[in-house]
């Protein structure tokens, strides 16, 4: 016999109220007098990813909202207990699939802090370039999708073109567009090619023009402003209470950016501003993202101008030796085998570390517990999307159904890192 599924929360309430039980609720007589309960997602064209909101509607107005997660459960954290430190890099790609590079970098930085290794300056500069390029691609797509959800489909297509150009750079550098797997513990998989610098500079030149076009189309657009100003208002205090970080918190006036407040990868040597808005609505989030793209472009330019020469991997026993040396020198071959053989590899000291980076969506934290073997005892992620997804409820209760779409796109919740 098939096990009966148990509904919870609002869905259970709906079933209890309905005289027809599990039969279709839309045929219920006397619907006009009652609240209607609809599932917004997990399969809904306007929903970003497999997210589910159970909405109780009074006409067009949302009475109550139940955000549900778990539709893209992947067991990423559990996988970390069965993969070596380097093997886990490929898993981090798939968490926030819109900014895989930022995830790679955040994870590698956390393991390096656990090991206590200092990166060479070139590796740091390359990572900064890649992290900021990832922020540009994530934010510009988010802006485009925000436009699309509010009726401006063109803005999304323009944003996609820019994202493709960033992905071209990623492919040139790492070999992958979406699943980059670029970082390794103690450095990078490949060096930064000469060609890339030219490509990035060319991209940054055209980026400003495209940003101007998108801005011209959305920023003063009556339709866009009417649907975004004052929508999904969230105060600074609420952001702190809910743990919301990143552009959403900065749009509410919470002046917090890990790159400036707790610098990693020598971020303190770059000159950039942290854009702040105080309105805390969908429009303010759009403005913050737009300003952050410009700041990221500024950081990329500075990093490229001051790109140091030298090794791109930390010297020592945690990084793979040069392939030519492996073919010809015995010491390098032994080190190669010691790192790659099962049961060997990178050995971290007993202990635990929490390291957070400013990913495009907010504070991305990694908590790694090491028991001294080559495999982490526990990998815990603090994905920014979880905190933003739980803030959906206070944002949209009491508002209209149409505002739900605007809210969700302004939060840029990624299901991949939500359900890990």
């Amino acid at each position: 016999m098939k096990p009966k599924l148990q509904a919870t929360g609002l869905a259970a309430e709906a079933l209890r109220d309905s005289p027809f039980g599990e039969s279709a609720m839309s045929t219920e007589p006397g619907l006009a007098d009652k609240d209607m309960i609809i599932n917004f997602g997990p399969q809904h064209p306007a929903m970003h990813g497999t997210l589910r909101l159970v909405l109780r509607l009074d006409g067009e107005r949302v009475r109550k909202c139940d955000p549900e997660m778990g539709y893209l459960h992947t067991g990423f954290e559990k996988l970390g207990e069965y993969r070596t430190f380097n093997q886990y890099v490929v898993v981090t790609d798939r968490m926030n699939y819109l900014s895989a590079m930022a995830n790679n970098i955040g994870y590698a930085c956390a393991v390096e802090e656990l090991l206590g290794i200092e990166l060479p300056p070139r590796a740091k500069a390359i990572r900064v370039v890649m992290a900021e390029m990832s922020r540009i691609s994530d934010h510009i797509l988010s802006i485009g999708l925000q436009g699309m959800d509010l009726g401006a489909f063109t803005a999304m297509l323009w944003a996609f073109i820019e994202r493709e150009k960033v992905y071209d750079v990623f492919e040139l550098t790492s070999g992958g567009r979406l699943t980059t797997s670029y970082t390794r513990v103690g450095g990078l998989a490949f060096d930064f090619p000469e060609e890339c610098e030219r490509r990035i500079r060319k991209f940054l030149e055209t980026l400003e023009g495209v940003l101007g076009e998108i801005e011209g189309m959305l920023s003063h657009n009556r339709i866009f402003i009417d649907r975004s100003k004052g929508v999904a208002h969230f105060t600074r205090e609420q952001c702190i209470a809910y743990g919301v970080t990143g552009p959403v918190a900065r749009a509410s006036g919470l002046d917090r950016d890990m790159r400036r407040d707790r610098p990693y990868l020598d971020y303190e040597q770059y000159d950039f501003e942290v854009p702040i808005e105080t309105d805390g609505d969908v429009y303010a989030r759009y403005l913050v993202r737009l300003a952050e793209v410009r700041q990221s472009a500024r950081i990329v330019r500075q990093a490229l101008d001051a790109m140091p020469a030298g090794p791109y991997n930390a010297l020592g026993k945690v990084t793979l030796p040069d392939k030519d040396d492996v073919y010809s020198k015995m010491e390098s071959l032994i080190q190669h085998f010691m790192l790659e053989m099962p049961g060997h590899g990178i050995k971290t000291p007993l202990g635990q570390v929490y390291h957070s980076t400013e990913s495009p969506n907010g504070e991305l934290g990694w908590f790694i517990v090491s028991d001294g073997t080559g495999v982490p005892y526990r990998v815990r992620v603090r994905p920014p999307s979880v905190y933003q997804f739980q803030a959906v409820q206070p944002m949209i209760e009491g508002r209209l159904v149409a505002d739900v779409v605007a809210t969700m796109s302004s939060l840029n919740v990624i299901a991949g890192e939500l359900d890990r």
Partner: protein
Amino acid sequence: MIHAAHDDHGHGPHAHGDPEPAPGESIADRTYVPAVLRGIKLTLARFLQKKFTVEYPEESVYDASYADRGIGASNPRHRGEHILVKDEQGREKCVACLLCMAACPALCIHIEPEPAPAEWTDRERRPKVFEIDMLRCIYCGYCEEACPCDAIRLTPKFYQPTTSRTERVYDKQRLLENNPDAQVPQRPRK
């Protein structure tokens, strides 16, 4: 009417609806017509520009006309299907050290070693079975990175439809002959 309904719910100044007109906003602006027209104008201007999209599969980024993008086949770091590299005498370079099998995060490589023939003086072992399950593979390139004798590489080949799952498990012969025409680039490691 709508306004009255809003007020009943008591949502204050942030309630949705027609906001107060911004200073300097004319009646024409409030009709949305200028905003719509501006949008159409921008769209039409873009319509006449060179298009960015590639009409896959009729054309692909592999074609010569897209070589200037530097991606796909023209990118030596592109991670596509694997190939087992042959040495000068046409034998596989692989010595069945199993490092790629250990390095694979997706656990998709299966190797069974056997003693190499006596006349192969340069090695003791060779793979009897070398299988890669391409459906499990995540194309991360760790096997290539782990290989100490340059025996396995990732090629830019990615177009790979089959009609059954078993065809996607590549055996040694298939891997040795994979993509024989394409020039397999040596990946820059420096």
